[in-house]
Every structure is written in structure tokens, then in C-alpha cells.
């Protein structure tokens, strides 16, 4: 569905995307992870045609550049910033977006109804967006990206600042979209979300793709060993090991063992192992 080859983009001396290769298959949810300034947003902007690559190629579906109207009609973007008109009602927001994608008449009304039902906002469709909660705005933002039935959906931090109920609803809707055959590029800093819904995950840093695979593959390859954390009388011990026997032997050597627990590697440890533990404020 989406194929990036040798994609590069620089801003002055800063190489934001560096020879990026990536293939996302039809109907999969691909998690796109990286620290701040890693090149995620630049990559997304290249995919939707907001930026032009210095070199490399982007192929979406059957071909065509992201700047061509036909390709754009096959892409949906839910940006991180809530791209909504506060003075318009939820329905008016969606009707306007639909018209921008050349929907009209009965088809427009049906698609708006579907999108409102899909994100659970039908009963609030006549309220202005400014009266919506943060979670409702996020859901409306998602609905606006889905109106024209895109084949490729890009979700940029779609659950930032929402309550657990709205977050759960959004994740469920994304899984529904996958079941309906939609391809999703999912950008997030919430590892548990990515673990929950993504078929494959890519970790990017300094413009380079560091690793790509299923969550299990990444954990096995980059997550590090299981750990046992034991608390003795005075101090805490951390043992990283590859087998239960090793763990038992290590626990037996702890003086005055009070309690212990195990830590298994997860996507967060993969992320930190690949991108380091230093702060990224840029």
C-alpha cells in the first residue's frame, strides 16, 4: 500500500529523513515510533505531499505522487493538532471536509452520518465543536479523516490528552478500520497503544529507520533480557538472565530476601535500547 524507498529530506544542514526505506502492506496497522525530532512528522508530511523529498520515491497504492489529487483522495490524515473549526457544529465540520473531497448531496449526508456514528458523536452533531470535550474533539478529528473512505490513514498522536474511555474508543475504531481493510500508519508515544493495535512497528531516530518488525520480533531482538528484581534487607538487586534456573540461583544468593518480582522486556525497553535514554527536547 505504501512504499518508501531511499527517501531523504534535509532542512539546511539538518538531515531530517535519511535514506528511509519502508513498506506498509495493505490492511495492516503500522506503528511509527521515535523520540521528538526523530523524523516522524517529516516522514508523514512527505507521505501526504506537504513536503517534497530531496531524493527517493514514495509510492502509494497503484502509484502517483502524493501531490496528485487522485492520490490525495486515497489518503486520510488526522493531524496531532485538532484541525477543527470551533464555531461550526460537529456536523458542519464534517460536511465542509466532505465537500473539500468532492462529496455532495446524498452521498455526503450518508458519509457524514456514518462518520458521526463511527466515532459516537451522532447525538452531539448539532453542538459546536468548541463545546466538545478533548476526547470528543479527537474523535471528530478522526471522523474528518475518514469521511472520504481513504485507503491509507495516517494518525498522528490521535489519543493525546484524552480520557481512558475516549482513548479506548479511538483504539477500537482503529481496529475496526483495519478489519474493514484500511491501512493505518499510527504515530504515538504511548507504547501500550502500539503494542495493543499495531501489526508491525518501526522505530526511527535521527531520520533513519533503526528497526522494523512485529512487537514480538522487536522485543526478542532489541528488548534485552528478562530481569528479576530482588529486595533484600538493605538493598535492591537486579539480575538480568535468560532462564528460570539462572533466576532461582541468583535469588538464592540474596541475603535476607524480603520479596522479588520479574520484569519482562517490552516495547518501551526496545524503544529505549534503540534510541538511548538521554532527553530529546528538540
Amino acid at each position: 500500500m505504501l512504499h518508501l524507498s531511499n527517501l531523504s529530506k534535509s532542512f539546511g544542514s539538518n538531515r531530517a529523513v535519511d535514506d528511509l526505506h519502508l513498506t506498509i502492506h495493505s490492511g495492516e496497522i503500522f506503528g511509527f515510533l521515535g523520540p521528538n525530532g526523530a523524523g516522524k512528522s517529516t516522514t508523514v508530511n512527505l507521505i501526504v505531499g506537504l513536503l517534497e523529498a530531496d531524493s527517493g520515491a514514495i509510492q502509494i497504492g497503484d502509484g502517483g505522487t502524493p501531490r496528485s489529487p487522485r492520490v490525495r483522495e486515497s489518503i486520510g490524515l488526522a493531524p496531532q493538532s485538532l484541525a477543527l473549526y470551533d464555531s461550526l457544529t460537529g456536523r458542519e465540520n464534517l460536511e465542509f471536509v466532505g465537500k473539500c473531497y468532492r462529496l455532495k448531496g446524498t452521498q455526503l449526508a450518508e458519509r457524514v452520518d456514518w462518520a458521526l456514528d463511527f466515532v459516537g458523536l451522532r447525538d452531539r452533531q448539532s453542538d459546536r465543536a468548541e463545546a466538545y470535550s478533548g476526547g470528543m474533539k479527537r474523535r471528530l478529528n478522526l471522523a474528518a479523516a475518514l469521511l472520504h473512505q481513504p485507503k491509507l490513514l495516517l494518525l498522528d498522536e490521535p489519543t493525546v490528552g484524552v480520557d481512558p474511555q475516549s482513548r479506548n474508543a479511538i483504539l477500537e475504531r482503529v481496529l475496526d478500520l483495519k478489519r474493514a481493510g484500511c491501512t493505518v500508519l499510527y504515530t504515538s508515544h504511548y507504547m501500550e497503544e502500539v503494542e495493543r493495535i499495531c501489526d508491525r512497528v518501526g522505530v526511527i531516530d535521527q531520520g533513519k529507520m533503526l528497526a522494523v518488525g512485529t512487537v514480538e520480533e522487536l522485543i526478542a531482538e532489541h528488548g534485552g533480557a528478562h530481569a528479576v528484581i530482588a529486595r533484600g534487607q538493605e538493598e535492591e538487586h537486579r539480575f538480568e538472565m535468560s532462564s528460570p534456573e539462572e533466576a532461582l540461583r541468583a535469588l538464592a544468593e540474596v541475603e535476607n530476601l524480603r520479596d522479588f518480582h520479574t520484569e519482562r522486556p517490552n516495547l518501551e525497553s526496545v524503544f529505549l535500547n534503540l534510541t538511548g535514554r538521554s532527553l530529546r527536547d528538540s
Partner: protein
Amino acid sequence: MSQIWAIACKDLRLIARDRSGLFFVLFFPIIFAVFFGSMYAGDDGRSIPMAVYDADETTVSQSFREALTGDPAIEVMDFSHEEAQDAVRAGTIAGLIRIPEGFGAQLERMGRGPPPVLSLLVDPTRRAEIAMLEGVLTRDALESLGSEQIAPMTIEIEGLESSSETVMPEPFELSFPQGIVWGLLSVVMSFSTSLVNEKTTGTLLRLRVAPLNSGDVLAGKAIACFLLSLLVCGILLAVGAAVFGIRPVSWPLLSLGLLCVSYCMTGMMLLLATFGNNERSSSNIGWSIMMLFAMLGGGMIPLVFMADWMVSASQVSPIMWSVMVVEGGLWRGFSLQDMIQPCGILLACGTACFLLGTLRFRRSL
């Protein structure tokens, strides 16, 4: 086209729901027009540049002309009769003093027959200066005879003549063109900041990833701005007609003028929208530029109170040309030929701003 229309309708809807914005677009210009209309009705004036046409050509009339030329209260301009009429119509001079045949003889017989008659063709916007002129003319007439005796003299004041009737506008007809221009300034600023707002809130991003190009986005905004400008003009004229009895001399020419002004303002909106990185800075920059144009173009202080160099400089202000074309159709009695120059300037200004704005907008993406 349907996408462009969708953007235009969305913008009009957003403006309609912005109550404070609506106040400045619709009600503030009415307050402005009423305020200045009341001021014109009650002011006591001053004057200055005049042309003199001597149809009498007697020694007395020539002495009178010399007295006028030497009077510091009047600047006698060197115009032919036709040129002077055009200059009054265009507002370049305050009026034309016509010395009719027989004026010299009547002046010499003063007190022993009908009083001498002078006729004054005046620019009604300079009503303040006319009252003072009457006294100056009487004084100079007596001076030309070497007399200090006070004697009556009849001064017939004429308004501008259109093809169909003589026009002497009411005070509110003088102030409503300025009110209309102020309404349009508010429209311009509302739309220019709305484009910046779309950038900062992210809605422009949604438009840019849709199958639209930047020209479609700008065209949608421009159509909305143009339509709202015409609506504001219509509402102000309707209020003027219903409440203050304003009756345009020429509806077709007034309509032509309003179309040109709205076009120019729309182009300026697109250019102003490219300045500033956020709503506040865009608004500050936009209002500063427009206020400067308004001040320079007589939108705040009448041109008559300005120094000559400022009056000359006012020609760079679209506001000056805007007021002129609205007055031209409303009460000045401009012909189509009279409208060509100011309308052409407004169209050229609008087109230049439109092109420059589009270029800057595309570069900013």
C-alpha cells in the same frame, strides 16, 4: 469550483458566528457614518483652492479677480471653465467662482439697483469652507472698488451638476462613503486574520492534504471576502436610504464603484494575510497598514485639513480612490469617463495585491 464555493460558504458562516467581528464589520461603520455626518452638518468650515471664471471681463471684474488672487484666504488656481468644473467634481479644488456678465456694472451701481450676483460652484464635502468664502468674496468685491462700505451681494451656491440634476448632498451622503470604506476595512481584517488563524490552528493543514491546491483555498477566501464586502456596502446603503434619506445619483456607477472597491479590498486582504506568524501579529500589521492608508487617504481626517504634499501623497492610498468612486456614484455625479481612472487604479491595486499575496502565501507553505 464546488470546493472553492464550500470554502467561501464556510468562511461566511464563521464570520456570521463571530459577534464581535460582526459588530466591527456592520455596526461600527454605521456609527462612524452617523458621527461624521452629524459633524459635517454642524461644522463651521474653512477653505482654500478656488478657480475663477470671469465672464464679465470688465475693469471691475478684473480688479475683483486681482483682489481674490491677493487674498491669503483663497488660492486662485489657473483653470479654464471646463477644467475647473472637472476639478471641483474630482475634489481637487473647493469650488469655482463664476463672475457673470454685468457683474462689474452691478457692483458699481451698488445700492442703486439690484445687488450684484456671484455664482459659486462648490464641492459639497468642503461645506465648511463655503461659509467663510461668502464673507471673503464680499470683502474682495468691495476692495476691488476701493470701497469700505458694507453692501449686500447675492451669492448663488450651486452643487455639482450630474447629467440629470444638480447635486447638493446631505451631510450623511458625505459621511456614508467613509463609513462604507471603514466597513470594508473591517471585512479585510476579519478575513486576513482568519487565514492566519487557519495556519495556527491546523485547519489549513487539513485543506492542504485535501485534493485542493493553494489557489483553491485562496479563491474560496477571496470569494467570501468579496461577497461580504458587497453585503456590507448594501446594508450600509440600505440603512442610509431608509434612515437618512440617501439617494445615489447613479445606481449603475455606484455599483461599478462598489465592485471595484470590493475587488481592491479583497486583493489587499490576501496580501495582508501573508504578514505575521500568528493572529495577533497579523492583526497588528494589517491594521497598522490600513490605518496608515486611511489616514493618508482622508478616511480619518479630511484631505482639506492636510498639507499640500500630504494631499499629493494621498494618491498612493487605495482608501482615497475608494472614497472617490463611492462619492462619484453617490452624489458627485461622475460620468462613466470620470470613473475610469479611479476604478482602474483600484482594479490594478487589487490585482497587484492578489498576485503578490498569492506568491507570498505559496512561499510560506
